[in-house]
């Protein structure tokens, strides 16, 4: 089936089978392998992308369901000149990643969190990020990073 969707600001036409997941369409069809698959049953959150601004498990959504949608993936976070998004920067500084497998999903979940709730406290961050499993960090660096990025982003808004 032919679908059209916008990914990271770019319009794409894709030929997919009805059973192809959005995650596979992004990874195989568009070579956007930053979206990772950790469980393929919607629990681990590694494949989280934003569809029309809402976080979605790309392993649980068929590509055809994204017809006409706007999709944001980790590849679209940094600026065109390579400048890291404040969350990416904070994840690096706070050691919010080790192996990087959960990281794209963590980042997209955090992007959504800070969009709807710009200054969450640590308990809120822990609760909101609890849909994404990280096996490496013990979450300390991730919570630090989201908190730090929130402060950075709030500071920018104030200016």
């Amino acid at each position: 089936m032919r679908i059209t969707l916008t990914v990271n600001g770019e319009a794409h036409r894709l030929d997919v089978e009805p059973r192809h997941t959005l995650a596979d369409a992004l990874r195989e069809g568009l070579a956007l392998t930053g979206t990772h698959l950790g469980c393929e049953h919607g629990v681990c959150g590694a494949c989280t992308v934003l569809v029309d601004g809402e976080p979605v498990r790309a392993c649980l959504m068929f590509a055809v369901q994204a017809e006409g949608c706007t999709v944001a993936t980790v590849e679209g976070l940094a600026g065109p000149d390579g400048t890291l998004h404040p969350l990416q920067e904070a994840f690096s500084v706070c050691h919010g990643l080790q192996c990087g497998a959960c990281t794209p999903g963590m980042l997209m979940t955090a992007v959504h969190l800070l969009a709807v709730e710009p200054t969450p406290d640590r308990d809120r961050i822990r609760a909101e990020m609890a849909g994404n499993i990280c096996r490496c960090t013990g979450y300390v660096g991730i919570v630090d990073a989201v908190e730090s990025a929130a402060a950075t982003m709030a500071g920018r808004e104030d200016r």
Partner: protein
Amino acid sequence: MTAAEHRPATGTAVRRKEDARLLTGRGRYVSDLVLPRMRHVAFVRSPIAHARLTEVDASGALEVDGVHAVFTGEHPALAAVALRAQSALPGYVETDQPPLARGKVRFAGEAVAAVVADDRYLAEDGAEAVVVDYDPLEPTVCAWTDPADVTDPVHDEAPDNLLLSRTFRAGDVEAALAAADVVVDRELTTNRHGGNPIECRAGVARYEAADRRLTFWSGTQVPHLVRTQLAELLDLPVGNIRVIAPDVGGGFGVKAVLYPEDVALCLIAIATPGVPLKWVEDRVEHLLAATHARDHRYVLRAGFAADGALLAVRADVWCNTGAYSVYPWTAGIEPLMAGGLLTGPYKLEHYECTVRGVATNTSPSGPYRGVARPSTVFAMEALLDSGARALDMDPIALRRRNLILPADIPYRMPSRLVDDSGAYEACLDRAVEVFDVDRWRAEQARRRDAGEKPVGIGVGIYNELTGLGRAASAGPRMPFRTGHDACTVRVNPDGAVTVFSGVTSQGQGLETTMAQVVADALGVDYDAVDVRIGDTDESLWGFGAFSSRQAVIGGGASHLAGAHVRDKVLELAGALREVDVADLDLRAGQVHVRGQEKPIISLSEVARVAYLQSDRLPEGFEPGLEGTKFYDPIRGAFAAGAQLAAIEFDPATGAVRILDWVCVEDAGTIVHPVIVDGQIAGSIAQGIGGAMYEHLVYDEAGNLSTGTLLDYLMPTSGEIPELRIDHVSVPAANPTGVRGVGEGGTLAPNAVVAGALVDALGVEVDDLPVTPSCVWELLHGGGDR
């Protein structure tokens, strides 16, 4: 930065070299790899724990569009090959593991056939169309079943399912127990769980028939070991095999195994030359068929003197090794570690411990972060907690009474391992201070008086045997000794540095750590160093990631290679500028006469001469500027650690809530403080997962009843508390002074959670994990569990 401002990279939280690609979705994982003409493999897996294979009918699968081939264990390409984990240990029963099941299946999840198709969807369609006829046999699930009840052994070679047993003996346990003032008994079990990295196993194999070359991209922790083992199994020269482990999405030991699926993929690739084959495991397969761990039983007796001195320990240990002796580590991996390290950081003269590795019809057990010691630390600390109750002593005071102290070092443990740490009391002291035991004791009393939910304090102290050299890695008596790694440091013609290190990384940031070590040993900036790892065609040698060994051993090799090349640079610089080499120093890529600010020559100019201007090469100098060194610490570096936690238990619901968690470790010299703390935090989180949530449960028929992440619960940011990590730093006797940190954090949480439970509620927990229902049943009586 001027030379005067040059600071060592060691000890600094430099930006990780890995981050730029991993944060932007540009990582290079095997799962992402696409090659021309590539086909995909899906495995057909047994739904039955133990059965004779009477027929595998692939005809239906071959009619599925896009399916190219189906391979079974009997296929000529695979039929002659078996993985056979070898050990010279007396009494060890060697058994074969076929790449795909032959004759019978030994666990639910074992691969029976492999379907090759144009994409993974089609390969799975094909797998569904393969019809397998099973003739069920009696399964064994529990490793401490009476051997007399075994009617259908897992392997014919071991009629009682016993693959290995060994008794560790020191002193006279019988006499010491008879003389003890207090004797305590415990019978404990620990829960089967596993590594579950977020990226499951993955491989791509490509064979070029004309020159018999195999390239295997694999998410492995041990690429060089995979290469030598594949060479044996596939009958190819080692040099014809290239194993590449690019970015790997977590390992934790699970990927330190050469799996039958890996070997099958390579054999099928050899049978279909020129066609790259890709297999990416899904989570359901991972839970079913990647190695499990920690399914143990401990029957323990300990004797104490009235003053709290630990006099004797007797232990009987059963480790469930699953259906196969894990390749190449053997079924000894858990039992031998359990017997060797059970006594932990405590002085003990009289010790008798019999360990057994018992085959069952469950997924094979293998290395998982902390190998056996999360269980043995639980066992040892449970004995000390019981002893403290019997003696009416404070549990922390009882531990202090028995710890190996700096004055005892080197301390020969009853298993004859030599402990070089002795920093246990220092870690405990610091942990007690950071945690503030008095504050929590006061809170405990306040809650008791106010009738609020009780809180308990749990403690776990441990030794992490890290960086095992040739003398210490001798335990399982395998046909290889994992004591050494190599590193090549190359100064390129432009003066930049490329390091080819034998280490591998599954998130530990080894590119960064090795760059720091080389930058300091050579005398260049961190940013001038690029590190290549994980490719057997690039780096000379490394055994890989296990036993918290790489910072110690790979780091040692990196340091030695960096220092060696620095000497070469200075010799060439001295000859070029006619200055005595003894007066020269290399800092931030500039050669100085010691004490002088102005450099006499830059590293890049020295490199240009070495590669491009042989006319300027002084007499006796060969072109090029690189060096390779091996390092083997011979013994190892024990790392000490202590953890304390305050945990609340709700008697009404059984709910368990961690209020505070403190860990103090001796990581020796710390190369990258944030990476080190990240290793400790991550390992504590996995330990907490094992202590409270993660449990791979088989039913009596051998079906895994926790086959998805909805049943197998890994902790999230909602469960893991804020972790307070601190250090004592006693440099180890190796080139960089580091001690390993990868595993230590996992060792204590079982003991800490169980200890907090008895401290809060006065009931001893014998069977992990400590779930709400476990707590509730301990308090209210649960009948049959």
